[in-house]
């Protein structure tokens, strides 16, 4: 039994962190999507983690042992024990959250799962691995912990009455080069050239847009199983992103609380501030192993993998929500201004905790599993 990042995984994360430290400062985040940064991320292998090696990716997806001879490892470095796909992904998306990265790194990984070994997807996969193209992904509303199934009535109800049915807003679709859609009847399509209508959202870097129905080409049919896996990977990757964002907000807020003097001493001396930030740290530190376990369970196909993914998103949502509320409150009015950098993470957290399944949906999945007729899925390890 071992639950901690290996030196290899730490190197992996550090490589990404150094790149983002150089190229993704708050001013860069405000500028939004950057093709240069995306290509740089491609250069270190981050955009092609799960892309098969024959298409230029790292080939860390399941079914690959990560040791293929042609394997180009992160940052060009050869790792003895590269983490498997989801575990590599969470190391990266935690850094993306920490840096508030605008680009759709998570979507690239999800797209690689969706496209799998489909020959029709080869060009897109090659482009992703290079960081030459971006992709947005629209999955049918589903319970990510249960795998795909019929769309619940609540999903269609989530489209405001004034909007065209069947056109939910898709993240990053406002600018992505490609949009992959899994339809409600299980077709994997690449959206056609129809209009994409931007939709205002709390985080401008999410690039929400509605994608016109119809047109485009069908890449595969009966693709429900892959869509379910993709949704789970999305939830896990988003969870790690949220944990990274929460940690970044906490760090900034601690610095602020040390320096901000009111009533003759730093506000960070006072218990109300201390205990609130201690609670944020608690939430972050206890979410992290939960996310790590979900990634491990995904990579190894454990029986509890679906529930573990749901649990990871619940814990990450909770930690990030607590961080957002607590860090804003400790900052006071300055945190409430758009020009202060904290707002970048606040927006990210508010958006991402609603996306890839909100807490309500994921908690319901855990509840359903725990109260199932035949008992909960066995945890790993045996209990």
């Amino acid at each position, binding site marked *: 039994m071992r639950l901690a990042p290996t030196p290899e995984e730490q190197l992996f994360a550090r490589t990404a962190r150094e790149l983002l430290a150089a190229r993704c400062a708050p001013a860069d985040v405000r500028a939004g999507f950057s093709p240069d940064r995306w290509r740089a991320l491609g250069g270190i292998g981050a955009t092609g983690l799960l892309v098969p090696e024959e298409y230029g990716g790292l080939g860390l997806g399941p079914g690959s042992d990560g040791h293929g001879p042609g394997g180009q490892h992160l940052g060009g470095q050869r790792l003895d024990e590269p983490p498997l796909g989801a575990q590599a992904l969470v190391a990266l998306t935690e850094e993306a959250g920490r840096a508030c990265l605008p680009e759709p790194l998570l979507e690239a990984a999800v797209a690689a799962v969706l496209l799998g070994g489909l020959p029709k997807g080869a060009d897109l996969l090659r482009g992703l691995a290079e960081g030459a193209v971006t992709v947005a992904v629209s999955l049918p509303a589903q319970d990510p912990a249960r795998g795909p199934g019929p769309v619940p009535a609540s999903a269609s109800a989530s489209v405001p009455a004034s909007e065209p049915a069947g056109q939910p807003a898709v993240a990053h679709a406002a600018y992505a080069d490609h949009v992959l859609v899994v339809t409600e009847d299980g077709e994997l399509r690449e959206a056609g050239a129809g209009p994409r209508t931007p939709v205002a*959202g709390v985080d401008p870097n999410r690039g929400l847009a509605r994608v016109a129905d119809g047109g485009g080409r069908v890449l595969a049919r009966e693709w429900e199983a892959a869509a379910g896996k993709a949704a789970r990977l999305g939830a896990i990757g988003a969870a790690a992103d949220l944990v990274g964002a929460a940690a970044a907000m906490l760090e900034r807020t601690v610095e602020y609380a040390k320096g901000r003097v009111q009533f003759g001493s730093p506000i960070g001396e006072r218990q109300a501030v201390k205990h609130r930030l201690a609670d944020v740290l608690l939430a972050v530190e206890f979410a992290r192993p939960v996310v790590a376990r979900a990634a491990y369970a995904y990579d190894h196909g454990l029986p509890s993998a679906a529930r573990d993914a749901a649990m990871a998103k619940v814990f990450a949502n909770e930690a990030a929500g607590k961080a957002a509320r607590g860090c804003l*409150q400790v900052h006071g009015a300055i945190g409430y*201004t758009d020009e202060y950098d904290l707002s970048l993470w606040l927006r990210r957290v508010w958006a991402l905790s*609603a996306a890839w399944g909100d807490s309500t949906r994921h908690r319901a999945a855990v509840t359903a599993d725990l109260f199932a007729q035949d008992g909960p899925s066995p945890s790993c390890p045996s209990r």
Partner: protein
Amino acid sequence: MTDLSFSAQQDAFRREIRDWLARRVPREPLPSMDTADGFRAHQEWERTLYEAGWAVVGWPEEYGGRGVGLDEWLIFEEEYWRAGAPGRVGQNGIFLFAPTVFAFGTDEQRARVLPPMARGEEVWAQGWSEPEAGSDLANLRARAVRDEARGGWRLSGQKTWSSRAAHAHRLFGLFRSDPGSRRHHGLTYFMVDLAAPGVTVRPVRQLDGEAGFAEVFLDDVFVADRDVLGEAGEGWRIAMSTTGSERGLSLRSPGRFLAAADRLLDLCRLRPEQAAPHRDAVADVWMRAEAYRLYTYRTVTRMREGKESGPESSLNKVFWSELDLDLHDIALRVLGAEAERCGPWLDGYLFALAGPIYAGTNEIQRNVIAERLLGLPREPRR
């Protein structure tokens, strides 16, 4: 006896405002009051209210009000917010500043300041906070230097988080008029024309995307003696009566939260499946809105019977600000995946996030509750 009914006259008053609102509330929401266009549209709405006698129902008739009591004010507010009527662009002036003018202003000041405020012609911004004086309001540094020759004062310094200041006409606030003074001594309460030479207003965008507040830089701005409220050096005492209003009853009438709670029920009825897991939580916030109403009734009863509202207003402020946040938080949970999209509930949530911060953070308020209501010892100060 406790009596939770209203009189026949009060019921008639309720019907009158309800009918008027049903006819006059704009069908489409006005643009944000923190944009130039929206500001003008909201000023026009204030004028409409004024002409029908609804702008300042509690003020004496000579200043444009109806001279009604607190019960009627509560009724007005319940109906106003239930009808989905526009936010009040004149709110800072009407609710935070006017009570001070009534209490400390001269007849001349009242006659000059209040009617254009009631008509929505002059919108007032507050000038309390400074970069080093947020929660610690007594740490003010913006200064007022006596100009005997011109019969007034010259103000310099920086005010921050001044709500509405981006488009407002005038500012009320405290300045340090005694250069050797510390803390809450030696402060004077001024009214400042934001168009005066030496004033620079820098709008600051908020989380909701609009310039809801601004920084105001004052560089040797002349203010005549007639724009001093009360005695020079008495500013703190005078201002405390205003922040009492801000934290207390007037700024946040129960009507706002009752209306939001009812809209939340409507949202749940519209989306029963999404709402199902949240029904108990919805009932909890709905009950809290009701509790706030009943608590306010108790406060109003006490005020009518001559009790001062003192540190109790801190209980009020903590309660409504956390209720408002939770109301909107649950609405966003009901919305689920849609919660990240701009819309009235997201706007309301972003707005509500400011509640526990402004007008004295909730941390400060809990200190006040503990020290002044419970009698716990003051915090050690360095």
